[in-house]
């Protein structure tokens, strides 16, 4: 490969060395020298007689000065061209005088072709600029002395060149014709050279050069044509237009006077296509459209009148029709317009300026450009910098309003659509509200985060630019910090929500109406007091129930600072009740007239453990806003691009978001780890089997990217907002417990929804559940264990608080029993002697068997202690079963045969194991298991074991109570 390629190169080098004296090129070289000599002399004369004198005649008026500047520029170009020619000519001439040998390399116009071409192009473009502004006419009108003096000399010179009588025309001719002619000479010379050359690479190079010079020739003629065309336009137009439109570099490309076309009926009487703008003139006014933002749409939607041919011109704020009667003319205009747009977008003209009609590529429909909106509307005076598509912002872009408002993000069809960051200045302060959210057809919709300038942050859903659906509003500033987690409607708190007032140390859980507490509500306080009331526009009305920390309960009317007013009933924990009218005048303390009932009946558990909010806030009605989004996501077909707007951003840490704000573009670094929605759906289909389903769901629920994981995350936030911290109040246990179960149900439903969709998309029919489990059962058995860890700390805390008294009593009982040595305890609990594992009591010399503790049934005890290390109720039940098995195996070892324990034997043994395991919050554990275990266990083995455990727990409490009573009796006697 490389060998073959190297060969021609070698040849070329060798060739150029071997054949330095190529006699055949001698003649063209000589002709070149001669031509250049003549040209150089000509240029020298032009320089001396035309340029130099004109340069001395600088006008004084502003316009003249500007034109003069162009002339000076033209002079520079002229000099550059002349110098190049001179220089090369001299070198060649020198070579000729020293040696007679020539080669193609000496033909500098070939080898330095690019340089020559560019200088010629520059010269003619500058020349044309000068022509366009009527430079020569201005020059000849110069009133300077030098010019007047010179005029006569010049006239003589000019007549040699041209028959033109007008000086300006003559000047025009003299400054372009010799140079243009010279290009022709070059082409002739090169053609001669080509003829004498043998076939080969040299000949090819020369051929290419000829082509380039030919192109230059046509370029020059097109440039001059355009210049004249433009110049005559400026002449024909009034000052009104030329003042605004006439720029030296601007060229007229097409004119409706020349090639008739009209813009949408009566819109304008003239259409001018320039190289940078499209201008519509009507009467004394005109409209110009930057070509970079002009799209030509051939497909006319509306029917054109018969015999009319046209196309649409689309610009950012206007669309109009250009039509003509001649299809040919329409084609030319369309082509010219498209080419002009393309060249404008390229930033430079083609070389030559025009190809053949109908040739050339169309301009791209996607562009990047800056535009200031003018028309009335939401974008008025705003500057858009970014991607465009058919006249509309589309893609990524930045929109800046005059008032400092600023939107960076995705656009679609001219509107904000997709993710965007929007800064809105606040009216009074020098601060901004920063919205980072999803937009839909110009309005905020879906998940977003708004950092208001006043340190308040909203994270949640929007619709039609207002807060709507689930959202969290948090005041992070030091004074009056609060947090609202709940439902929004029309930018206001509406529906079920939790409000935490951090200053007051209070949490309101209940319904809202237009930003006010309204309807049923529960208030829990830092001190553990909680009450349920009816609210009306933030005010408490009617009577309520106040549950005090010391287990006393007040039913009646009371104020926000918990003073009793009016009729009420106060029930003390000791069973006394006080019913009457309460007053609280300042300075006099609490006063009451009523009846104190001291019948001393212990308060019913139903009151001291009253559960709030169950009827008022049915679990199905809590956090609807969260579920709704997910449901909508599924209904909309789980489209990748909408996932984030429905399910929220997967990054929620403020640090990461700040980063996205700093870079001010929506790179949120999701690419590397993103779960594509289609992959998610595919995986769903593949993981339908029970085992893989479990591990799949586990993975999904843990992921912050999977929709189910996001859902769980949102639910966790809502749950914590309600039940953590101040919300840890035993009167909320049932609400919390129901809620967790409902979460499991909903997550299962949504999983089913996703699966259904995935199967549907694959064209498969979802199969009916064959194993006969209802979806509630599945939710319990599959989902609940997976999600429980997220809610366990708060939930278990509620169980602990709920069972606090029982657990305390039981713990005292355990402490009493812990004083017993093993044998004593076995005896105390009536364990039959033949079941005592005395063999396990190994003695050291100083011990007596009757004093040894914590040796019997050690394996069972240790097993039961593992209960607190687990979360899943099922696992806890398995531990319970294993504990039984340990007891059984110990007993079997003792009696030396398989022993099936009847309850008469088992209960005392279990009692023994429970008292030795010393689990602190056993009551909480038992009830958590009972509430959350699968309902199918009811009446079954696990239920039995749990009941057995519970009965031990109860019995230990009762033993303690008896002991206490006995103590009392003893004391009294």
């Amino acid at each position, binding site marked *: 490969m490389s060998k073959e390629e190297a060969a021609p190169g070698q040849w070329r080098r060798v060739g150029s060395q071997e054949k330095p004296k190529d006699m055949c090129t001698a003649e063209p070289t000589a002709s070149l020298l001669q031509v250049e000599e003549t040209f150089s002399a000509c240029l020298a004369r032009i320089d001396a007689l035309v340029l130099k004198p004109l340069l001395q005649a600088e006008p004084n008026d502003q316009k003249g000065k500007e034109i003069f500047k162009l002339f000076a520029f033209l002079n520079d170009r002229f000099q550059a061209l002349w110098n190049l020619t001179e220089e090369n000519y001299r070198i060649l001439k020198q070579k000729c005088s020293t040696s007679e040998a020539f080669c193609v390399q000496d033909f500098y116009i070939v080898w330095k072709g690019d340089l020559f071409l560019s200088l010629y192009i520059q010269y003619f473009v500058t020349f044309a600029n000068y022509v366009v502004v009527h430079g020569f006419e201005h020059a000849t009108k110069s009133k300077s002395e030098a010019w007047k003096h010179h005029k006569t000399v010049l006239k003589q010179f000019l007549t040699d060149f041209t028959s033109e009588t007008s000086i300006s025309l003559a000047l025009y001719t003299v400054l372009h014709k010799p140079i243009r002619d010279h290009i022709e000479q070059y082409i002739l010379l090169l053609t001669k050279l080509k003829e004498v050359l043998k076939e080969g690479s040299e000949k090819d190079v020369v051929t290419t050069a000829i082509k380039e010079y030919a192109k230059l020739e046509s370029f020059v003629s097109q440039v001059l044509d355009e210049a004249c065309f433009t110049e005559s336009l400026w002449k024909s137009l009034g000052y009104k237009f030329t003042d605004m439109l006439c720029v030296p570099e601007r060229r007229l490309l097409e004119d409706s006077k020349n090639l008739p076309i009209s813009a949408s009926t009566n819109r304008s009487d003239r259409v001018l296509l320039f190289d940078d703008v499209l201008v519509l003139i009507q009467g004394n006014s005109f409209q110009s459209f930057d070509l970079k933002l002009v799209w030509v749409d051939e497909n006319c939607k509306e029917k054109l009148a018969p015999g009319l041919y046209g196309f649409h011109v689309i610009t950012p704020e206007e669309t109009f029709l250009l039509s003509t009667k001649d299809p040919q003319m329409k084609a030319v205009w369309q082509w010219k317009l498209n080419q002009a747009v393309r060249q404008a977008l390229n930033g430079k003209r083609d070389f030559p300026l025009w190809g053949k009609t109908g040739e050339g590529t169309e301009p791209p429909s996607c562009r990047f450009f800056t535009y200031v909106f003018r028309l009335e509307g939401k974008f008025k005076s705003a500057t858009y910098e970014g991607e465009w598509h058919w006249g509309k912002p589309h893609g990524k872009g930045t929109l800046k309003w005059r008032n400092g408002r600023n939107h960076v993000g995705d656009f679609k069809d001219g509107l904000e659509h997709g993710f965007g960051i929007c800064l809105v200045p606040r009216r009074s302060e020098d601060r901004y509200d920063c919205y980072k959210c999803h937009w839909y057809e110009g309005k905020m919709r879906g998940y977003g985060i708004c950092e208001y300038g006043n340190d308040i942050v909203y994270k949640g859903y929007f619709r039609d630019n207002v807060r709507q659906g689930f959202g969290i509003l948090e005041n992070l500033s030091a004074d009056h910090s609060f947090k609202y987690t709940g439902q929004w409607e029309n930018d206001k708190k509406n529906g079920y929500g939790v409000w935490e007032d951090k200053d007051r140390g209070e949490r309101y859980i209940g319904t809202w109406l237009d930003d006010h507490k309204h309807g049923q509500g529960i208030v829990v306080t830092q001190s553990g007091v909680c009450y349920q009331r009816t609210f009306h526009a933030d005010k408490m009305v009617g009577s309520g129930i106040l549950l005090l920390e010391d287990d006393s309960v007040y039913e009646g009317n009371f104020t926000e600072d918990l003073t009793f007013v009016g009729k009420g009933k106060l029930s003390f924990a000791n069973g006394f009740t006080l019913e009457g009218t309460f007053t609280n005048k300042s300075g006099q303390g609490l006063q009451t007239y009523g009846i104190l009932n001291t019948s001393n009946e212990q308060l019913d558990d139903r009151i001291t453990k009253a559960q709030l909010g169950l009827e008022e806030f049915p679990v199905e009605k809590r956090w609807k806003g969260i579920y709704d989004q997910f449901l909508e996501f599924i209904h909309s077909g789980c489209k990748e691009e909408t996932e984030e707007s429905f399910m929220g951003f997967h990054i929620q840490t403020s640090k990461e978001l700040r980063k996205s704000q700093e870079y001010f573009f929506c790179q949120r670094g999701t690419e590397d780890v993103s779960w594509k929605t289609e992959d998610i759906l595919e995986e769903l289909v593949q993981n339908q089997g029970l085992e893989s389903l479990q591990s799949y769901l586990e993975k999904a629920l843990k992921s912050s990217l999977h929709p189910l994981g996001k859902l769980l995350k949102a639910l966790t936030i809502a749950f914590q907002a309600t039940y953590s911290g101040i919300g840890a109040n035993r009167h909320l246990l049932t609400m919390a417990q129901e809620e967790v179960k409902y979460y499991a149900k909903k997550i299962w439903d949504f999983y089913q929804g996703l699966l259904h969709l995935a199967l549907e998309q694959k064209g498969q029919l979802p199969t009916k559940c*064959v194993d*006969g489990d*209802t979806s509630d059962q599945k939710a319990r058995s599959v989902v609940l264990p997976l999600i429980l860890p997220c809610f366990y700390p708060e939930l278990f805390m509620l169980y602990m608080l709920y069972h606090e008294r029982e657990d305390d009593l039981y713990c005292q009982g355990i402490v009493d029993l812990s004083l017993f040595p093993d044998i004593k305890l076995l005896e105390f609990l*009536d364990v039959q002697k033949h079941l005592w594992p005395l063999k396990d009591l190994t003695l050291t010399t100083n011990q007596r068997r009757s004093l040894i503790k914590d040796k019997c049934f050690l394996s069972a005890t240790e097993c039961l202690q593992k209960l607190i290390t687990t979360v899943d109720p099922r696992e806890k039940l398995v531990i319970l*079963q294993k504990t*039984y098995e340990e007891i*059984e195996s110990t007993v079997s070892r003792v009696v030396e045969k398989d*022993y*099936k*324990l*009847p*309850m*008469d034997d*088992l*209960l*005392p043994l279990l009692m023994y194991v429970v008292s030795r395991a010393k689990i602190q919050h056993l009551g909480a554990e038992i009830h958590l298991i009972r509430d959350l275990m699968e*309902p*199918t266990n*009811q*009446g*079954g*083995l696990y239920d*039995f*074991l749990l*009941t*057995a455990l*519970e*009965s031990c727990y*109860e*019995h230990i409490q*009762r033993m303690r109570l008896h002991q206490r009573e006995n103590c009392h009796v003893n004391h009294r006697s």
Partner: protein
Amino acid sequence: MKGMKQTNPGTTESKLETVHVTSMDSLIKIIMLPLQTALKIDNPRTGLAKHKLKVCLLGDTGVGKSSIVCRFVQDHFDHNISPTIGASFMTKTVPCGNELHKFLIWDTAGQERFHSLAPMYYRGSAAAVIVYDITKQDSFHTLKKWVKELKEHGPENIVMAIAGNKCDLSDIREVPLKDAKEYAESIGAIVVETSAKNAVNIEELFQGISRQIPPLDPHENGNNGAIKLGKQTSQTELATDADLDGVDIVLSNQLSELALSCM
């Protein structure tokens, strides 16, 4: 065992067609309709609804509560031994009419000191088996206490069955059968004298309970075994093959008889 499983609905349907051809309409109406109900075609495997029944055992220590259950559970060709908690918790499934009864039998501790814990065990029970020792008058007294307690605090409509155990020792009897029968009649309970040792009347005891259990409401169990949780644990679920081992025979025999009579 496999060969015995002729109870799938497909078979019966084809039989049904045969009957149609012979146009013995009246016969079909009489015989086939109950049969269809029995098969519960919505159940793909066995066609039988399973009725879970929690049964609690009450009675003094040493009267043989668990022996009765052990005998009941073991004295049968139940190849799939369902998990138990020693002799304290056992299960057994028996056919009863169109249903299967799965007994979940909860033992309780008979010691006097644990008496107060009993409500935790008998709550949600469909039936209680109260056992006394015919050789111990005291145990009969305790029985009466249990009956009283159940009447007052037990689940509504609980089926009570009185078992006078150790009838093999009738020579040292202290409680006459007549007393027990009279008492049982007065409270509307089933009564039998049993011998766990000699397997006397054990099956009968539980059959007696089965008969008193009201059948499932077809509307409530239609939803493939949705759990009905009321005060009593009387649940339905699909009978699994494991539950049915040993049961099928009886049923398939009944079926073939029916089918034959149709022909």
